[in-house]
């Protein structure tokens, strides 16, 4: 059984947000438009958050891309009254749209705020409709949606592997964000595979997880920014 995980190296991350756009293109996440975006209704399965601190000339800025953490103990799945969201056997926190009734408790109980709600029915301009990914279901209004590590890619890779009667090898399947990251900051892979790159990186000295003290056991690891020392 696979156990998918992701490592994001903040020392490499350049804040370019290619992951954000790639994710939206891959998963048919419609842009919200200016007015809706102001209300915070823009959906970013892979979000980008930042914070500026300090004062001139000692300014510091921290930022990181934040996908769904795919927690091992997800707080969001417990609270769904209709079991529309659950942790699947491969560790991905799944959300099944047809079941969702839109109570949004999963959203309010996600400490990472990475679940998004369809406040309106997505209205694609006709021209863009041709460019949608046919592997991804078009969400309706009133359901929650979230990152799922590009399950359609994983699924397809598994079909291929099955055809050849083998297991997936490391790096064979990667989500759109990791695939596009220009500085190769995002690594994706199987945390159960002892030889995988993602497992090695997740055990790195620099590795940490967001809000680790909550006990959610995220499967998305971050690597701290390093320091340059003279010599």
């Amino acid at each position, binding site marked *: 059984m696979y156990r998918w995980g992701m490592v994001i*190296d903040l*020392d*490499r991350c*350049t*804040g*370019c*947000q*290619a992951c*954000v*756009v*790639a994710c*939206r*293109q*891959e998963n048919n996440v419609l*842009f*919200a*438009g*200016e007015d809706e*975006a102001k209300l915070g209704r*823009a959906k970013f399965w892979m979000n*980008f*958050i*930042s914070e*500026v*601190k*300090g*004062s*001139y*000339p000692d*300014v*510091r*800025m921290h*930022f990181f891309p934040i996908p769904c953490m795919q927690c091992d103990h997800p707080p969001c799945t417990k609270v769904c009254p209709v079991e529309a969201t659950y942790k699947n056997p491969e560790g991905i926190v799944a959300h099944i749209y047809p079941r969702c009734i839109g109570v949004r408790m999963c959203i309010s109980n996600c400490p990472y705020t990475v679940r998004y709600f369809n406040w309106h029915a997505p209205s694609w*301009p*006709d*021209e*863009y409709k*041709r*460019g*949608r*990914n*046919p592997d991804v279901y078009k969400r*309706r209004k009133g359901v929650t949606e979230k990152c799922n590590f590009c399950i359609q890619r994983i699924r397809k890779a598994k079909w291929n592997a099955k055809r050849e009667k083998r297991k997936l090898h490391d790096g064979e399947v990667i989500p*759109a964000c990791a*695939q*596009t*990251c*220009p*500085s*190769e*900051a995002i690594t994706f892979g199987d945390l159960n595979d002892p030889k995988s790159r993602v497992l090695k990186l997740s055990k790195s000295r620099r590795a940490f997880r967001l809000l680790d003290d909550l006990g959610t056991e995220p499967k998305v690891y971050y690597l701290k920014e*390093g*320091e*340059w020392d*003279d010599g």
Partner: protein
Amino acid sequence: MKISRRNLLKMIGAATLGMALPDELLHALPKEGEWIPYEEHWSSGVCLQCPSGCGLRIRSVNRWPVKLEGIKDYPVNKGRLCPKGQAGLQVLYDPDRIRYPLRRKGDRGKEEWEKISWDEAIDQVTQRLNKLRQDGKSHQLLVLGGRYRGHMHDLMSRFMEAYGSPNHLGNPARGSEGILKGHLFTMGIKEFLSIHWEGVNYLLSFGASLLEASRSTMVNLRGYGLLRRGRPGIRGKLVQVEPRFSLTASKADQWIPIQPGTDGALALGIAHWIIKEKPYDQDFISRHTFGFDDWKDSNGNPRMGFKNLVLKEYSPGQVSFLTGIPEEKIIQLAKEFSSHKPSVAISGRGVGMQTNGAYSQMAIDSLNALVGSIDRQGGLLLQRKAPFQTWLPPLKDSIAEKGLSRPRIDGAGKLPFPFAQEVPYILPERIARGEPYPIDTLFLYYTNPLFSIPESEKLKTALEKIPFIVSFSPFMDETTTFADLVLPDGTYFERWQDDTPEPGPGLSMFGLRSPVLENPLYDVRETGNVLIEIAKGLGGNVAKSFPWKDMTEVLRESIRGVFKSKRGSIRTKDFDEFWKALIEGGGWWDGAYPYGEWRKKFDTPSGRFEFYSQIMEHGLRQLSKDGSKNLEAILKELKIEAKGDKAFLPHFEKPRLIGEEKDYPFQLIHYKWMATAEGRGANQPYLQETAAPHLQERWNSWIEIHPDTAQTLGIKDGDSVWIESKVGKVKTKARLFPGAHPKCIHIPYGQGHRAYGRWAKGRGINPNDLLVSDYDYLGGFLSHFSTRVKVYKA
């Protein structure tokens, strides 16, 4: 929806029913369209969202492209894409694309068009050009080009030569010419340089927006990853010298705030310490440079060298006074820079868009020469070109010869712009005044000067003076709205085009775009083909200069040279196979970069890196001979303060600012960030919705003010403010940003379109509306950072 009584009733009904009925009954499921099997295929292309030219793998399902990815081995992007590249499909599917040729019906700029056929449109252009030629006014054809790629520039130049007009302005490096001029004066190189990221250990960046909008976005983004964690055990250092706390500064190991426009002085201060303490690369200096020590010219006169000038004038103390950087920091930088080799100094818009841009860049290039990091592992790479087959020269008849002998309309190459290849910024004035001659016909290819040139009102009146304007743009941008005839080009997914990344990864390479769709999405034609058709219609020698049927034939002829070289990534027996592999693979690239070819690449009179620029000296002396002005007078006309030998050596010239400090207390520093870097992405909603990293702003413009400054002005975060310069004023939102320079106002570039589709139009402000034209006359380019502004609450 209108609220009529009927609807009201319906809604009340819906509300009551709503509790009881499942969604499906109220919103009948949309009927599924024609059911087609799920067919997926991958093709290759080259991105054109910025000049990087990344290789694209295009995933299509049922023939429609649905996702873009990078080509795995493509040297520029190695399988990766930046956000702009990822949003590329929104260029193809843009609902506001021009779908067929258009002819103006109403007044100019009113956007009233009628649809015409391609034959009719091309006929009209041909007839007009023919008449112009027969009247002996062929020089009155002006071509403004922007993002030419590959052979398109050569094709257009060829057309102009055969037709007989010297007025071809098509410089793709607009905005960073200062860097190019610096390279030209020191190394005789006309292209940008790139960094050998795999090897570099220490990167001193003078305002290069490496992670936002640099030249080659992808090479730099990828390179940053390599610098940081690409090599086990080595973590390179990045130092960012910049007045504003940019994204790059935030990711740098050290940010050094500097007084705007004084980068050259800092570079010389660092050079001072290196020269004084002698950790410089003596081998490189003695073998491959000129003008380091004092020297004697052919007449035996003693001349000043770089070493003496720097030691005399740029001690850290003096530099600290100029730049506002503490002395010990300058020494620390010098120490680190010279001891952590390979180290590289690079620059960006901040340097290249000042009135002292060329000299600053020379100083920065000199730093690289001091540590010998040019064309070496971990240093700067000089672009190698792909071995294309050259075409036979165009046939020129007497009309063409006569037309070409006329002076250029922009006066490039003459005083006051002796070293400029072209000066597009001066065009509005010249056209409006009809000087030296009026312009009859204007071609616009992938450029939008009404948006990208400051003081666009002037250009607007100038455009009124041109009787006939043809635009080849696929989008209804500002300048295209002023056209009389629109011959829409396809997007970069719909045409045949080669693409040499500039700057690329250094080694010789090129990419090839081929149409993704069988036919273009709409009734559009690629401009290359249209140009060939026009040439054929003109007949005579012009037609004979274009022996090709269409763009594919042009490309096949050029690329045959690459095939014949029998090297690089594709090696096949016959050309058709090569061609097929090229289309599938998306491009061709050479195996390895040949380091250390200084002699071959430095195109200077001495064949070396010149601290003392003989190119500049010879050029100016030539002018003084022609125009019977002495050198001193010429320097004065170029507004250069330095005298004698110093003028030809890297030195610091005070940046000129326009506007009195008491009226306009702030300097306007605009900047670019990834998503809206060039304003071209403004019609792509995915990019519009990308957050500005530091302020999480989307879809709009804003200005950045330092909180203390804002407090004295009584401006709060989110207030709407006026920004006023000598030439204009605009209103936008103010954001307090602790990383803003206290004496500057920062505006992101890229918004403020007055046309360009539904997502771009009427959104935010364009800093160009505020800029006052001033030039680096030596380099012949516009200075973007010399405008002073004032800010007040609206």
